[in-house]
């Protein structure tokens, strides 16, 4: 009762329908926490080298956060882990909502699935008893309908994670949904669940989650709450101008994440829609355009104030006092929908040159129900449009769709085809890299991916840190692991010794200078986010600053350990290195994951916010790898590094 972890995992073999409870030694939690760390530990040790991501040897894990349920805040994220069929690398995706505590309430820190079921099944866990049940009547139904049907049967307290038709049809850009529209979307792990014929995981437990010192946990949470409700005297119409100012100013200061939290609290992630476009953070027109192609006159339809008008009530994930989500009323087929996130709005909007907000609401809900990643789906649609505009795809290929920039109707029809895997949609449903391989004719030049995964809507030509993490992380193409901006907001230098503190004012161009400090900053972000994903912490909470959101303090109070921030950074380093070792074990060459030239600014853009900028990832990579003790030429962890971190 006084430990924050349950000390057990459930291993389900779908091939022979057996379920085994396993106790995990305390030492593993001390080294890796749970969440992504425990997932990496199990997958690294148990998955045979070279396992087919879509075969029976792939292991899919649903891992709850280490701090979930301990009285800490921002700690409600669960991590889905597996070998990604999209990239062939380590794959993870995380999601908020209510699923993370539900795993622990069932008495487990994580539930893993291996093998392949002969027919559709779902896992049901209640009062310490797990069973596999037939899901033939649920197969083919969308994620929201399935969740509603399961909650009707098992009661509203049951937490459900489910795949939609995209996962069932093994789309490599599909994810796993929970809470009627939250989705662990990245890395294509929905396809792994689909191929295993596992439709859903239904958890209905009441086991309590402990903490070593509940009073101290509460004290730290109360301290943290002081920093959440920080009113922002900024009207929505000004946000585009803030972006424009950030574009033109040559000198900037380290940003305090508390401003960002205020934006999140007021508008959600969509608060950055126009600001990002104007400052050059959002890629536009399949990464080939700039803010000049999508000026404020076009982007005003996605101004956060307009999106906010549709919001009925805010939606908070478990243990989050900010509440960046929202439930909206929308026009058309789906009257209620989750408020589209920044990533979804920009991927389905700016990247495809689409300013029709109604279509974005519709597509967001369509993709959430289908269980398809909005980032990858938008990026693939934008790629298809460019192929059509350049004459590589014809009207015959598209089934009569006129895929021109800004043709909303055609884009909506295209994404519907992708969800249904119908006609050209079948070709595009596995992301841009595979689509380009099938189309040929030089279409590879229009793809933007890192190791096969489409990067998120943050341009590494605006913040070069994004390009470092898109290219060098064990999970390529992920934006939630680090950036120059994230480093500023985490404010880790206030707690961790020996890491650089940004100057009070610096030029924007200095961010592009390649030096040891940048490599150190990127490595610190990776270590900290690996730790945070093990703890189940939300990145948006961490933006408030390491001193105000006491992750290290919560970890010590929850466990009774007396570790220093530096010790915890070593835990993050160990998780990160284990993921990289996983990739190496499976034959991945880290150099092959570098992001496409277009996103690196090769050739540089001729106009707009990121005009003339390029990032030399070849020069940046060795410095980053060196920070972890990985080989500076190949990016593979050295023997001595693995030994030092205790990885066998």
């Amino acid at each position: 009762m006084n430990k924050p972890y349950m000390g057990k995992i459930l291993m389900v073999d779908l091939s022979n329908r057996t379920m085994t409870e396993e106790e995990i030694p305390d030492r593993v939690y001390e080294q890796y926490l749970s969440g992504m760390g425990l997932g990496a530990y199990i997958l690294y040790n148990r998955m045979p080298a070279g396992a087919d991501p879509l075969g029976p040897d792939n292991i899919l894990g649903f891992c709850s956060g280490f701090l979930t349920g301990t009285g800490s805040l921002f700690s409600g994220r669960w991590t889905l882990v597996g070998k990604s069929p999209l990239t062939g690398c380590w794959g993870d995706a995380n999601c908020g909502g209510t699923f993370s505590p539900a795993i622990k309430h069932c008495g487990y820190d994580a539930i893993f699935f291996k093998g392949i079921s002969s027919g559709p099944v779902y896992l049901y866990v209640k009062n310490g008893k797990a069973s596999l049940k037939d899901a033939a009547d649920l197969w083919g139904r969308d994620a929201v309908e399935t969740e509603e049907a399961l909650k009707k049967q098992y009661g509203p307290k049951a937490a459900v994670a489910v795949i939609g038709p995209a996962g069932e049809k093994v789309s490599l850009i599909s994810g796993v949904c929970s809470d009627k529209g939250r989705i662990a979307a990245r890395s294509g792990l929905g396809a792994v669940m689909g191929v295993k014929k596992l439709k859903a995981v239904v958890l209905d437990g009441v086991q309590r989650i402990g903490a070593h010192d509940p009073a101290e946990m509460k004290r730290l949470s109360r301290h943290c709450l002081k920093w959440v409700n920080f009113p922002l005297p900024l009207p929505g119409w000004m946000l585009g101008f803030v972006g424009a100012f950030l574009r033109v100013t040559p000198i900037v200061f380290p940003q305090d994440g508390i401003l960002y939290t205020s934006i999140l609290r007021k508008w959600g992630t969509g608060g950055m829609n126009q600001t990002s476009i104007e400052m050059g953070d959002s890629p536009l027109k399949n990464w080939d355009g700039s803010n000049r192609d999508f000026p404020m006159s076009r982007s005003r339809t996605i101004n956060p104030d307009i999106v906010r008008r549709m919001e009925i009530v805010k939606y908070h994930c478990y243990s989050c006092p900010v509440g960046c989500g929202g439930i909206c009323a929308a026009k058309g087929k789906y009257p209620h929908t989750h408020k589209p996130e920044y990533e979804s709005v920009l991927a389905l909007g700016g990247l495809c040159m689409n300013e029709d907000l109604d279509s974005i609401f519709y597509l967001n809900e369509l993709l959430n129900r289908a269980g398809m990643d909005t980032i990858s789906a938008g990026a693939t649609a934008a790629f298809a449009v460019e192929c059509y505009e350049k004459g590589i795809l014809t009207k015959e290929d598209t089934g009569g769709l006129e895929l021109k920039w800004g043709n909303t109707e055609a884009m909506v029809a295209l994404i519907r085809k992708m969800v249904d895997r119908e006609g050209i949609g079948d070709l595009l449903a596995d992301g841009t890299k595979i689509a380009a391989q099938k189309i040929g004719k030089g279409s590879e030049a229009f793809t933007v991916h890192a190791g096969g995964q489409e990067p998120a809507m943050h341009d590494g030509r605006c913040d070069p840190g994004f390009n470092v993490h898109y290219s060098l992380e064990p999970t390529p193409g992920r934006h939630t692991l680090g950036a120059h901006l994230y480093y500023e907001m985490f404010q880790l230098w206030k707690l961790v010794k020996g890491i650089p503190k940004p100057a009070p004012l610096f030029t924007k161009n200095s961010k592009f200078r390649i030096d040891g400090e940048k490599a150190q900053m990127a490595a610190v972000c990776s270590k900290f986010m690996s730790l945070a994903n093990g703890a189940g912490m939300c990145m948006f909470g961490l933006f408030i600053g390491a001193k105000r959101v006491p992750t290290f303090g919560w970890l010590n109070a929850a466990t009774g350990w007396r570790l220093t921030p530096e010790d915890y950074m070593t835990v993050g380093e160990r998780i990160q290195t284990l993921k990289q070792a996983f990739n190496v074990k499976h034959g991945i060459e880290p150099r092959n994951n570098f992001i496409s030239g277009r996103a690196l600014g090769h050739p540089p853009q001729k106009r707009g916010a990121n005009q003339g900028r390029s990032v030399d990832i070849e020069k940046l990579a060795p410095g980053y790898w060196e920070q972890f003790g990985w080989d500076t030429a190949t990016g593979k962890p050295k023997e001595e590094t693995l030994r030092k971190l205790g990885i066998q």
Partner: protein
Amino acid sequence: MAYTITEKCNGCGACARLCPAGAISGEKKKLHTIDAKLCIECGACGRVCPQSALLDAAGGLCAMTKRSEWPKPDVLLKACIACAICVDACPVGCLAMSDVPRDKGVDAFPYLKDSKACIGCGFCSKACPADALVMKKPSPVQKPAAAA
């Protein structure tokens, strides 16, 4: 530690029916037992047992109380941060987040959706990081005048 049932148990089954963790088992009219691995120490069994046959985790005898007098959560909206920790902490699922906003702003708020299901365990109140939930004995409801 967990709750335990003493020899005084007459096997009426009231506790087993109420236990949210499914931890109590036993045949009708025979001594019931509690599975210590499943018990979450909510105390519902102790409050409902007419035989006073329940000992709490510390070994103290539990006293039966009328269900109408069991404490229920009262939400202090001003302090509530809408983090939904209380909703998750409730073992019977009687709390829910509203699907309409509060008077001011757009935040949802927790409310006692199914007050009959509440077992008065107080887990919601203990878990609340903002001390926005207090357990209160329900005020006696005035009986409506009998229809003529």
